[in-house]
């Protein structure tokens, strides 16, 4: 049956999708590798749920909630077979309940986070608002990708055309400040856990104008939008400078490794954080200490 038994499996799959005869088999291959759906998603919906990503703790599906025109993100934490069932149920329930509560609290305080649509912590799922747009990580990399490649060019261009990116860094700083002000620390701040949601209004006019505007303006649009913080799976309620500084430190490290070319712009984020948060200055002071020793303070155990 197989025309090339020696070829590696990855290559075979690629070929299967490209040749017209075996395209019918391709969806079956996808199905085979998919996880069983959580029970809540086995009930009918207007469009089938799509598995977006799989993390260490759970899986994220895109589906619709309440009515077919409301997209949502459903996070499912499957039971872990290696844990005692009673303990497993309790941990899953407690963590999801906590995540839901933190999201609601942030939402009430006006911090841009997804709204909670429904949850069943005992069954291991939570459905939250679907945030349009792309992760900040993707957008920054797109932006940086358009930058001049060779070093000399880069040096000459440095400092003058990073305006929109600096603006974005400031918006991120302000969003984190808002989060910390409500007494919540995120626990896993990265540019992947922030979405850049495009502004909803005047969509048609901007797309019509794209031909007229200069390349610079077009580039600037790339980084437009509201910063929405997502994934509160590791969040905690804390008012301490130490925890807040750790939050910033984790982001700083993540930022430096995902966007090394923009590392020097991180200071703008910190500056805006300081300005939009009353206790910002003391948190930044603490950040110095955290940088010296890493994020783990407690040396006990």
């Amino acid at each position, binding site marked *: 049956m197989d025309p090339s038994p020696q070829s590696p499996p990855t290559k075979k799959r690629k070929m299967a999708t490209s040749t017209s005869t075996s395209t019918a088999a391709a969806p079956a291959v996808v199905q085979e590798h998919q996880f069983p759906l959580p029970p*809540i*998603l086995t*009930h*009918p*919906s*207007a469009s089938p749920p799509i598995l977006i990503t799989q993390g260490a703790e759970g899986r994220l599906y895109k*589906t*619709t*909630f*309440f*009515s*077919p025109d*409301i997209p949502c993100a459903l996070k499912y934490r499957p039971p872990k077979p290696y844990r005692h069932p009673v303990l497993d149920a309790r941990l899953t329930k407690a963590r999801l*309940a906590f995540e*839901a*509560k933190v*999201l*609601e609290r942030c*939402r*009430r*305080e*006006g911090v841009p986070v997804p*709204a*909670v*649509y*429904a*949850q*069943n*912590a*005992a*069954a291991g799922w939570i*459905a939250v*608002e679907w945030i349009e747009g792309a992760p900040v990580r993707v957008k920054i990399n797109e932006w940086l990708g358009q930058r001049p490649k060779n070093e000399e060019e880069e040096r000459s261009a440095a400092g003058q055309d990073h305006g929109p990116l600096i603006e974005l860094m400031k918006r991120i700083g302000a969003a984190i400040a808002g989060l910390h002000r409500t007494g919540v620390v995120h626990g896993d701040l990265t540019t992947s856990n922030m979405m850049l949601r495009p502004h909803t209004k005047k969509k048609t006019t901007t797309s019509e104008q794209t031909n007229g505007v200069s390349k610079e303006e077009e580039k600037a649009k790339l980084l437009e939008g509201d910063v929405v913080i997502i994934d509160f799976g590791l969040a905690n309620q804390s008012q301490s400078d130490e925890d807040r500084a750790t939050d910033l430190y984790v982001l700083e490290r993540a930022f430096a490794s995902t966007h090394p070319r923009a590392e020097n712009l991180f200071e703008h984020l910190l500056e805006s954080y300081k300005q939009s948060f009353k206790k910002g200055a003391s948190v930044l002071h603490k950040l110095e200490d955290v940088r010296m020793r890493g994020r783990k303070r407690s040396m006990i155990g």
Partner: protein
Amino acid sequence: MALETLQIEHVPSDHHVYAALFRDVQNVDFLQAQLIGKNPEFEYAFIDASVIISRTHLFAAIFRALNTLTEGTLQTPNVHSDIVIGLNPTNNISESYRRYGLTPSKTRDVLVIKVVYPKLSPENSTITSEQQPTPESIWQHLTTHIQGTPVPLTNEEFAKSTDRAKVRKYYKLNGVPGVERIDKADEEGRRREMEGLVISGIALRGL
């Protein structure tokens, strides 16, 4: 016929939800008496429409009740009363009935929900399918007993009867920064933010 079959996502396919909205209902006291008398003919969720801000708000409460029904963890005698208490962000059941259910001489617009699903008969645990009501029979029953004007279940119709002050009070939305930071002129933005918080409140009850 103004009885709508609601299509709610992720609800078992053998569960059917019907809803209708009646304006200026004259016999609220009669309807409430049927509920208090536990008249089996009146197994409906009767909701005071003034506390509902949108279809999505209503769907959130219905979804929650259906979810507890399928999990077998109803908090009240049946799924219909669970829809009414599902609207409440707090756990007080009698308060839920008072606030979201019917109040004679106060309630004007009545929202009716009927859930039809295969019930297991207690003796032999087989599905008793013979007397499942049809949309026609439900509508017939409602129009004979509710003295009011049926209107379609649209967000516009809900907006006409919503008592914003009451919603803000019941869902603790007064002076909440999440809503207050939105410009007063942005009516739609404020409504959406309120809706989001109302739904979160419904979703989080009991946590």
